[in-house]
């Protein structure tokens, strides 16, 4: 495990994380006790069949939803202790989110989409525009800054979404199936950008995915099944087994 390395810090730690949903009298146990540690600069793939609790786990570590039991530490801060205003601060500057369906604001141009989180972080508009253009350049869309989402392809939209997630230079990127809505070639482009962010900027990336190409670029894999961690493996250990695992996945 990378924890041997003294230069690495734990950035996300969950301890006995459980989550129950109650609809009338029926209680659904989405998470039944998850203990994981994620280190700065890691590229993690979270895999698991649908209904496994993967999304719930994502919401917990993204500070989007509260846990029923156990704790989530982001950078050694207990998320449950944060107020709503502090949580907004956390989401704004510490974590970037990338969604399966891009979730760009439809009425904003690419640049406006990228600068929106900066506005929330109280960055002056001129500086925000400047940084926004830099980020669009990073994802290769600087010449399309004035286009609205409807005028862009899925891959271009996802690239804008990546630029937006990086707006306030977060240390964590949470990606929820970032390539699921894209064709193979476009998906590869997205993965390349994510990999580049991970290596060049040292952003910790956590990706929920079914995409096997992700296995090639991630450091570790976490399998979740029935609300528990089924297995954690380094990429090296998994590499040989890809075919078999591919057979297991739907």
């Amino acid at each position: 495990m990378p924890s041997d390395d003294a230069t690495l810090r734990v950035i996300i730690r969950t301890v006995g994380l459980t989550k129950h949903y109650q609809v009338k009298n029926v209680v659904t146990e989405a998470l039944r006790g998850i203990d994981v540690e994620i280190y700065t600069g890691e590229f993690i793939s979270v895999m698991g069949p649908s209904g496994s609790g993967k999304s719930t786990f994502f919401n917990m570590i993204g500070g989007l939803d509260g846990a029923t039991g156990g704790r989530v530490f982001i950078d050694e801060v207990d998320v449950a202790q944060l107020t709503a205003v502090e949580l907004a601060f956390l989401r704004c500057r510490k974590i970037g989110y990338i969604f399966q369906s891009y979730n760009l604001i439809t009425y904003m141009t690419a640049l406006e989409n990228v600068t929106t989180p900066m506005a929330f972080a109280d960055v002056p508009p001129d500086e925000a525009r400047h940084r926004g253009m830099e980020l669009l350049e990073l994802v290769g869309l600087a010449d399309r800054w004035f286009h609205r989402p409807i005028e862009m392809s899925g891959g271009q939209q996802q690239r804008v979404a990546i630029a937006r997630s990086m707006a306030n230079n977060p240390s964590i990127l949470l990606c929820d199936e970032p390539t699921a809505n894209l064709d193979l070639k476009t998906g590869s482009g997205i993965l390349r950008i994510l990999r580049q962010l991970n290596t060049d900027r040292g952003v910790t990336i956590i990706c929920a995915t079914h995409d096997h190409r992700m296995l090639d670029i991630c450091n570790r894999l976490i399998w979740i099944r029935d609300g528990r961690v089924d297995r954690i493996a380094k990429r090296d250990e998994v590499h040989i087994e890809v075919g078999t695992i591919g057979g297991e996945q739907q």
Partner: protein
Amino acid sequence: MLPPDEDNTLKRIDIQDQARLGFLRTLSMTINGMRHRLGRSVVTILVIVVAIAFLMNTLSESMLKNSVAGRLDERIKELHTAANLATHLSQAGTEEQVLSRLAAAGEEETIPSELQSMGGFSDATITELTEQAAQATAIVTWLERLNYGQRRRLLHDAEGYGVFGWLREPEHLQRFETELATMPSLKLPVTTETLHRFLEAWPTTRARSEQIRTGWLEAANRLATSLDGRSMIEALSDAEGEFGNQVREAGFQLDATTADRVAPQAREMLDVKRIEQTIDSDAMQIAIAQRLDILPGEIDPKLLWRFLGSGSNASWFLQRMTETGFRAEDLSRERLRELSRIYREEQALASVAWVRDSADRRILDQRMIWLIGVSLIVCMVGITNAMLMSVTQRFREIATMKCLGALDGFIALAFILEACMLGFFGGLLGALVGLTIGMSRMFGTFGSLLAGAIPTFSLLLAVGAALFLGVILAALSTVIPALQAARLAPMEAMRVE
């Protein structure tokens, strides 16, 4: 294997409170979004426009009606100056009329010199009398507003100014005061002491007003002798001349301005009467009927005057009059048309006289308040519904914004601001639409009478109020949707359809 933290981008961020977005940036983001949702915004604005237009239409029509009613009173009084003066000069007023004239003078703090000279009173006496009359009128007006049961208990069956004679009986006054004490909601317009002093002086007051009546009657009789068999109207056609002096000599007051106004009016009345009498003759009736191709029985003054409104008809009519043996040499074509115009104006005034009764001088009556209230509630429900739908449709956008660091307050404020802007434009448009409809409807009803009677300032005030109401209504209606949007969980953004 893992990348080293070279450029120190992984430095720890201390968690702080998220900054609040400035109002102007919130506003510009809201406007940006609204531009995108123009279709929906237009529909919501229309709901507001309809409700505010209804309010504004009712309000402006009512204000215009009241304003016209005020002018109408003046105009009718003006048109009837001669007729009113004729009545005034021919017969003495009743006790009530004398007292109310005195009371009116008392309110304006002028000395009614005509009545003073008729009664032959000194300044001090007439001043005292006007004061007494003012009290009498105030008490009688107050008593008339009581309901039947209250009146019965307080006054038995005494009525009008007769109540003062009745109350002078000590046992009646005692009963009045005892009963009044049991009705705490009723308060006499004068103090008890004033009432007692007033009742004490009542016989004197009455005698003095009677004295005025006698003087008035004598003056009228004196004037009657100078009529020389003329009717009062005929005599008044000479009001600027000899007859005016005779009026003044008889003991009435007639200033030059009134005389100048009365004399031509009296002449008009005489001419009108003369011309209307022509259609009593069969020959004239048949001639007009033939010219108009109608039955002779259908001819009445109204039709006659409309007929005389045209110049060629007037010339033809004058010729007919001479041929049939009526005296027409002092009449001209222009005179006939002028009389026709005055007659029609009077008719027009009479046809809108209902406005004096219908406008009970309040801007809105109970029923209209109720209707407007319902329409505003329907409007609010409409806005709330539109905004709730907007929240549902935009849940992903809202949740994404929250993931990007938007505070609950920003989301709520953005919705409220959007509603305020819809309310502003809807209110403005609605107020203008309502005002336009109200003005054109009232113009159709009152025509030129409206021209000088537009209460511009009040109408502008009403537009401002309607605009304000539109904004407030829209903002209030959006409170619930805004809270719902603000409470939306950010994890909704992760949901995949």
